[in-house]
């Protein structure tokens, strides 16, 4: 029995305001270590909201999120930030690289925030990460000098900077052409093989099919969960 990396118990996210809505409506989910999970669903189904909850970017209205056995609802903002920094890597649809910083500096940013390595080690590790993603020539370039696919891969490298156990990606291929999409998905796939937990939201059912498990979200609930661990591995 593999260890559970991410577990949710009755997770609910409601927004109050001019328009009140329940984005996530009681999700119970277990994702084991090394699992590659794809979350699909129609627009507005709450899959991104669920992802933000899983990634500690947003706080649930009700329910509990347990990451590596640690309940998170009582953590302070600073503690959550620290947990995010050290164990969760985020990739968004939009690359969100800091525009004034070269690729290597963007990748080193989370390392420097964590502050566990010496400057030289950070640089070495950043270079190694970029190289492993085929970005050797991009190391010292600014984001606006890179192609869309390169930027997204730099963003992945940044997400991996602190060697997180959990990778969370929100439509990481949404803005990419098919070649780049393929590349990015292969990288995520490989990460799962390296025993990291990968959770990806995607519209692309073809890509979702390459995951270990697909979770379909409709109206904030899990509508269907297809598990095909053996086939994928």
């Amino acid at each position, binding site marked *: 029995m593999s260890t559970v990396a991410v577990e949710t118990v009755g997770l609910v996210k409601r927004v109050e305001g001019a328009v009140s809505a329940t984005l996530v409506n009681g999700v119970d989910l277990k994702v084991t270590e090394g699992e590659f999970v794809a979350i699909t669903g129609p627009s507005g189904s709450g899959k991104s909201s669920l992802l933000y909850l899983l990634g500690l970017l947003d706080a649930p209205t009700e329910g509990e999120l347990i990451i590596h056995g640690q309940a998170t609802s009582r953590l302070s903002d600073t503690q959550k930030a620290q947990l995010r*920094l050290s164990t969760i890597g985020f990739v968004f649809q939009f690359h969100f690289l800091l525009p004034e910083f070269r690729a290597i500096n963007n990748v080193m940013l*989370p390392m420097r925030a964590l502050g566990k390595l010496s400057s030289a080690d950070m640089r070495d590790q950043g270079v190694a990460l970029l190289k492993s993603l085929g970005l050797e020539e991009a190391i010292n370039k600014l984001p606006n000098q890179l192609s869309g696919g390169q930027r997204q891969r730099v963003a992945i490298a940044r997400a991996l900077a602190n060697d997180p156990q959990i990778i969370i990606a929100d*439509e990481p291929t949404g803005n990419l052409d098919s070649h780049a999409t393929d590349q990015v998905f292969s990288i995520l796939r490989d990460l799962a093989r390296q025993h990291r937990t990968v959770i990806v939201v995607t519209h692309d059912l073809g890509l979702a099919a390459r995951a270990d498990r697909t979770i379909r979200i409709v109206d904030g609930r899990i509508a269907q969960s297809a598990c095909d661990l053996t086939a994928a591995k």
Partner: protein
Amino acid sequence: MGFLFEIAWTHVSSRIRQTFIGVLGVATGVGFTIMMSGLMQGGQRDFIHTLIDNMPHITVTDERTSVEKQPAEEAYQAAQAANLVAVERRSGIKNPNQVVSSLRSWIPGAIAPSIKISAMINVAEQHVGVSLTGIDPQQEERVSKLAGEMRQGTIGDLYHAANAVLIGQTLATKLGVRVGSSVTLSTGEGVSVSGPVVGIFEFHVRDIDEGQIYAMTRTAQVLAARPTLINEMRVRLDDALAAREVASQIEAQTGYRSISWQEANSDLLSAFKIRDFIMMLVMGAMLLVSTFAIYSIISTITNEKRHDIAIMKSLGIREQWVQSIFIIESIIIGFVGVIGGSALGYFLTVSISQITYTNPFTGGKQPVPIYVTPTDYVAIGILSLFCCAVAALLPTWKATRVHPVDIIRGAS
């Protein structure tokens, strides 16, 4: 936290135009604040210097601080006297030599006994009431600037003729006398003496130049019909600012009224307090203006950097750290502004000190007094850096409290 500084530095250095405007705002504020402070302090110091230079720091007079006891009160414990004519005592300081030498033993400065009397100066048919001070020329040099203000003749010339006098420039013009002219002095005691004018001084202070004359101690004693009279002691201290304490000590020791220069000019000095207050307000307003410049620039930067803020927070960089990035930016802009402002302030003060103006009262040409110490630069610099940091607090706090999810959702 080197990377926070690095991010801040990258932000400000990649927005040169904006940064430059911010720096300009701070520099202008700092520069003109330094200039203002220099002018205010310069004017004040100039005035106080004139004041301190032209008058003794402490004047001890024979005036008593309380009414003398009536003989009955001294003889009988129970006696009480009221509304009686004051006991007649001979005026003057008793045992002046003893008092002077005992004061000399502890006062940090010089002390010179003198006689101050009212007299009439008569030349031809003109009679002008003046204040006559009988001095010892050797000691006078140590307690007043008279020697330096002589336009013709010297203090020492008093020795060279019997009953010689020194008179002020304005009075000399008024009476039509010059060095060598003979004048007659007379007093209410019915004494009158004649002697030559041996020197003319000019303090550029009307009261002195028109109403004050100096003669030898002896001459004054003759005019007062009191051959041993000493009714005034003038003290010049090494540290003029200690005058107040020393004066009260002298008063306590001798019982004679001692007036420090501060007390003698208390109304002027209290006017300076108000001036200081106004200066603080004006300088505060200038710094406030530059603070607004910073506020607006940091607001713009944080607004433009909403995505960066969101992404840094989503990466797990703490809110306070993200906020401090922008506060550091404000301080960088402020720091460069302070450096530039100090240069501007220095340039302004040096330029202004080159300007001379014609004193409307004395007609003399003199430079505009301006006075700035390195401490002023440092104090104004630190104050504006502080203002910059404070100005950045609100916009950065607002900007960094943004929820990353809101931004990320909006962007994708």
